């Protein structure tokens, strides 16, 4: 059976429960569903919002490539990736990854892989809006994220 792949780039919020239910409902042999939600943080009250800019078209295509890579590496029944753009307030969900498999290791590893790759390859950029009303800096990419993504090149 072909894995069920869903990936979207959208301004609207997502609903974790709905996405997990959709994957768990694929069949009676989904034994494991892992999920990851990345939220907008206030950074200790410093931020009022994060504004997410993206490259329309490429964002969807690049996520599609990462998704294809994941289903090649792990035996998945299905996976869902939703990445939002626009203005996010602290507590808002920015990115959602859900993976379904018959076994937990595949579900966990694929979810981690997807997140590591989304961080370093999906064309999104975050700009800070400070709590004092001023517009802050563009968030700087973390060396840690590149390293996290690199580990999948030797493992996998």
């Amino acid at each position, binding site marked *: 059976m072909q894995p069920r792949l869903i990936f979207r780039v959208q301004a609207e919020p997502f609903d974790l429960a709905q996405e997990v239910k959709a994957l768990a409902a694929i069949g009676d042999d989904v034994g494991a569903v892992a999920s990851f939600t990345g939220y907008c943080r206030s950074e200790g009250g410093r931020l009022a919002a994060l504004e997410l800019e*993206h*490259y329309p078209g490429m964002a969807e295509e*690049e996520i599609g490539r990462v998704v294809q890579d994941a289903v090649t590496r792990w035996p998945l029944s299905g996976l869902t990736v939703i990445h939002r753009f626009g203005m996010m307030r602290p507590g808002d969900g920015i990115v959602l990854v859900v993976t379904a498999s018959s076994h937990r290791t595949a579900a966990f590893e694929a979810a981690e892989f997807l997140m590591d790759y989304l961080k370093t390859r999906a064309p999104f950029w975050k700009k800070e809006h400070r709590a004092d009303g001023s517009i802050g800096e563009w968030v*700087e990419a973390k060396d840690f994220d590149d390293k996290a993504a690199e580990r999948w090149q030797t493992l996998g």
Partner: protein
Amino acid sequence: MTEIKLIYFAWVRERIGLAEERVDVPHSVATVAELASWLQGRGEEYAYAFENPAIVRAAIDRKHVKPDATIAGAREIAFFPPMTGG
């Protein structure tokens, strides 16, 4: 000269002051790195955007490329900072 659509994101876009433009690129400009360096000569804004070309990333026709990628045949070339999504 070849007309190419250029797109800029995040602080590259802000520094240049444009989200996208169509540019006639001389045939002598063969790679992404050469394009970045040629753009630097187009004015202060461009010089500022590419002041540290090593940290500006590029995509040709919506695929990530390295600085030595050839631009021949490209319809759309994007320049942007390292990504911070996820």
